[in-house]
């Protein structure tokens, strides 16, 4: 139900009841006032009429008595004197209709004498003798009664047929003459006129008027009540007989000598009516007016007829006003409805006028507008944050690209070493981009390097830091630095310009494929697990250094171990050990060792997969909070003996020399010294010197243009079993293979003069590798393994 309908439904009945009550009350009051007024007025009028009639009757009585007195005082009674008296009286009293002096026939000399004067039509005096035998006045009551009791009498009203159908009443008074009753003097009063006056009076009030004689005869114009002027039967008798309570009530009322004003039902018309009566004392009659109530209360009805339309109009106006007010409430609601439609369409920029309507509506409009603005602001915020997220996402994509480019993709990474080692790297980022990486490196001298690292932070900065750390480690490793030196230098360089305060924990393993010797350095990284070929596992705990990039001048210590054939080194990041199960328990070292021990041996990828499967099974549905990185390194081949007592670590001499031939003698000395140090006999040492000399000479003479002040790098790595020499230049690379095959060892006098040097190198060394354009330049690696029969003992003999 609408507000408007509800408002109208409640208020209109209330107003109608209020108005109705007011009207009713006012009508009651008015009615009372009117009735009181009418009461007083009618009473007064009725009394006045009664008085007037009283006077008339009284004067008529006096006239009759005067006539009687005059006759009594006459000396002699003559017809002339009697006539004269009558005529005189008549003319002096215009209210009298007729008059007679009728004598008892045998008492006076006048004998049977009854002169009668009355007013004819037109007002002329008319004489009539009542002594007409046909009439015989002596028989009439009006004559006999006064004579009988010597007092005056009013007759009941009667229709005078003699004088011409006039309703009249007569006062008859005895005439005394000289002590004797000699006759009767009468005065006739025509009631017709009286009744007419009464009728007019009553008619003005819509009622009917009538009189009731003492005997109960009714006089009036009302045919209904009276009949023809005067009723023949006594009303008292009629009422007596009747069973009509109203008729009885009316009779009772009329007999009451007191004046009355009564509200009752008209016994004739049956309408609610008002009855007023008053006593005419002189004659003992009662004058009554009976008028219909509604007619009497006509003014009241008129009032009602005026007031009700006005009330209706007022109520109508109020309804219209209510409608307007309810509209003023509901129309703004429609505006708000429209506004919510706007909002639901996504149009939050629409604004409602805040200066229209009542205060509440204005405030609501303001509130709506603020809501719209707040939503707009919110949308703007969401857009902004979405844009930020997008930027962040793109940053992450870049970082992910960097990371993808960093992680090794080729397995196996060192195909030429497949019979010496098997390595596999597994990486699973926690989110889009992680902070972990791993790396595989070829090192000067034939060793390989493995890196597992965890960069603090996420996103692009961390990725760049990671890339930087990786390149630094690669560069240092490529220069042949020892693991500790690599960590020290990388830390030093990473610390510089590290405004973001990033750092990286790192485990670096240098692995010698031939011997299984492994040198480890940890920069705050998780200790690796060594899984022996038989399934036993142990934690390897290199001295944990400080993460790279944290503190300048940090030192790192190398830990050395030897992998026996079938042994596996498991390197990982804390994402493996820190992952939690539903009970928030860490995976931990013990489980990692168990998983590594239970994993199938002999295959690096299978080993990694088994450990990852154990981690995944442990974590179940739990989210992976950090990257998971795992590198498994298995030593392959080699004799078990090689895994015996750990060998001496490789000693490296590394120098950068000017690319001038003047250094050659010194190089030769150093190489020979290193070779001897490595346990080679003199002749072997000299052959090695030759090979290195050839390579270095080649670099000095051909790598650079003439007159340049360039340098090259010489690295001599000596260990128990081999000498590893690398010569790195930074000049033009060349086709080493082709150059080294120009001479095949069959000398002829006609042969070309070039190519001999490289032939010698290949003849002398066990391994010769040329890597042009490495990060460090063009690198020649020469390896000479010490043979078992090159025992120092024989060496002494030969010396």
């Amino acid at each position, binding site marked *: 139900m609408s507000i408007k309908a509800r408002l109208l439904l409640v208020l209109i009945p209330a107003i109608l009841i209020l108005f109705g009550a007011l009207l009713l009350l006012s009508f009651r009051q008015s009615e009372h006032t009117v009735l009181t007024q009418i009461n007083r007025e009618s009473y007064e009028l009725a009394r006045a009429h009664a008085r007037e009639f009283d006077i008339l009757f009284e004067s008529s009585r006096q006239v009759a008595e005067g006539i009687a007195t005059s006759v009594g005082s006459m000396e002699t009674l003559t017809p002339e004197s009697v006539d004269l008296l009558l005529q005189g009286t008549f003319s002096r009293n215009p209210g009298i209709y007729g008059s007679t002096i009728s004598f008892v026939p045998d008492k006076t000399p006048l004998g049977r004498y009854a002169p009668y004067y009355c007013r004819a039509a037109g007002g002329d005096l008319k004489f009539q003798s009542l002594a007409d035998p046909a009439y015989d006045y002596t028989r009439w009551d009006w004559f006999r009664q006064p004579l009988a009791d010597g007092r005056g009498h009013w007759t009941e009203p009667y229709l005078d047929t003699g004088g011409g159908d006039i309703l009249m009443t007569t006062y008859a008074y005895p005439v005394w003459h000289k002590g004797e009753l000699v006759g009767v003097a009468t005065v006739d009063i025509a009631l017709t006129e009286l009744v007419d006056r009464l009728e007019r009076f009553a008619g003005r009030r819509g009622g009917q008027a009538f009189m009731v004689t003492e005997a109960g005869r009714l006089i009036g114009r009302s045919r209904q009540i009276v009949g023809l002027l005067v009723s023949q039967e006594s009303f008292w008798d009629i009422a007596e007989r009747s069973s009509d309570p109203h008729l009885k009530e009316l009779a009772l009322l009329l007999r009451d000598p007191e004046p009355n004003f009564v509200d009752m039902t008209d016994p004739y018309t049956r309408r609610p009516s008002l009855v007023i009566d008053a006593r005419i004392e002189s004659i003992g009659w009662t004058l009554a007016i009976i008028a219909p109530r509604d007619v009497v209360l006509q003014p009241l009805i008129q009032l009602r007829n005026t007031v009700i339309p006005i009330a209706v109009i007022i109520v109508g106006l109020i309804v219209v006003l209510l409608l307007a007010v309810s509209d003023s409430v509901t129309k703004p609601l429609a505006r708000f409805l429209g506004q919510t439609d706007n909002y639901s369409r996504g149009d939050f920029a629409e604004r409602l006028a805040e200066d229209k309507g009542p205060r509440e509506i204005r405030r609501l409009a303001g509130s709506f507008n603020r809501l719209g603005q707040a939503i707009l602001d919110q949308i703007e915020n969401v857009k902004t944050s979405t844009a930020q997220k997008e930027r962040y996402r793109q940053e992450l994509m870049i970082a992910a690209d960097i990371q993808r480019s960093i992680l090794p993709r080729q397995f196996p990474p060192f195909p030429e070493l497949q019979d010496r080692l098997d390595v596999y790297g597994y990486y699973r980022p926690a989110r889009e981009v992680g902070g972990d990486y791993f790396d595989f490196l070829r090192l000067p001298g034939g060793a390989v390097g493995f890196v597992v690292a965890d960069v603090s932070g996420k996103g692009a900065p961390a990725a760049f830091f990671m890339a930087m750390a990786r390149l630094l480690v690669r560069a240092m490793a490529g220069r042949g630095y020892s693991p500790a030196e690599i960590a020290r230098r990388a830390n030093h360089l990473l610390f510089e310009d590290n405004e973001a305060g990033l750092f990286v924990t790192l485990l670096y393993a240098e692995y010698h494929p031939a011997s299984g010797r492994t040198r480890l350095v940890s920069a705050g990284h998780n200790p690796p697990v060594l899984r022996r070929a038989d399934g036993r596992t142990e934690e390897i705990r290199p001295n944990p250094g400080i993460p790279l990039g944290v503190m300048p001048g940090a030192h790192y210590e190398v830990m050395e171990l030897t992998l026996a054939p079938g042994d596996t080194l498991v390197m990982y990041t804390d994402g493996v050990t820190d992952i939690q199960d539903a009970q928030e328990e860490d995976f931990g070292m013990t489980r990692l060792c168990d998983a590594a021990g239970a994993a199938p041996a002999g295959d690096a990828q299978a080993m990694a997969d088994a450990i990852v499967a154990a981690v995944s099974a442990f974590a179940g549905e739990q989210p992976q909070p950090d990257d998971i990185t795992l590198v498994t390194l298995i030593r392959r081949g080699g004799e078990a003996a090689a895994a015996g007592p750990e060998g001496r670590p490789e000693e490296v001499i590394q120098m950068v020399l000017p690319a001038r*031939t*003047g250094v*050659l*003698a010194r190089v*030769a000395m150093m190489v020979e010294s290193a070779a001897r140090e490595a346990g080679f006999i003199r*002749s072997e040492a*000299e*052959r090695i*010197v*030759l090979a290195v*000399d*050839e390579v270095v*000479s080649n670099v*000095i*003479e051909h790598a650079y243009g003439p007159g340049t002040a360039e340098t090259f790098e010489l690295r001599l790595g000596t260990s128990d079993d081999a000498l590893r020499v690398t010569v790195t230049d930074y000049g033009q690379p060349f086709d080493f293979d082709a150059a080294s095959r120009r001479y095949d*060892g*069959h*000398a*002829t*006098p*006609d*042969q070309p*003069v*070039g190519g*001999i*040097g490289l*032939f*010698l190198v290949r*003849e*002398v060394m066990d391994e010769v590798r040329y890597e042009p354009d490495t990060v460090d330049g063009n690198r020649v690696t020469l390896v000479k393994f010490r043979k078992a029969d090159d025992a120092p003992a024989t060496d002494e003999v030969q010396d």
Partner: protein
Amino acid sequence: MQVEVSSIGGKWTILAPQGRVDAHTVDDFETAVRKELAAGARWLAMDLASVPYMNSAGLRVLLIALKAVRPLDGGVVLVRPQPQVQEILEISGFMNIFSVVADTDGLS
């Protein structure tokens, strides 16, 4: 590097490098050889007794000398090579194209 030059019996020109023959010193050796060739020497004896070390650059000079005298029916002999030089000569296969003598006395 000094290269001592002498002759025996007017036929043989003896060149004796004094020290290592490597990329650093080979130019002196080569210059001396070319000078003698230019002077008409056809029989060259390379006295290697004072050469503790020689590399392929020295071999190259020996080959140049051999190539130069062969069309003139001349010859090149290597005299008293030290062990290292002996070794390189063997490895390089140059022993097949050069004759080695113990001393210059046998030259004629």
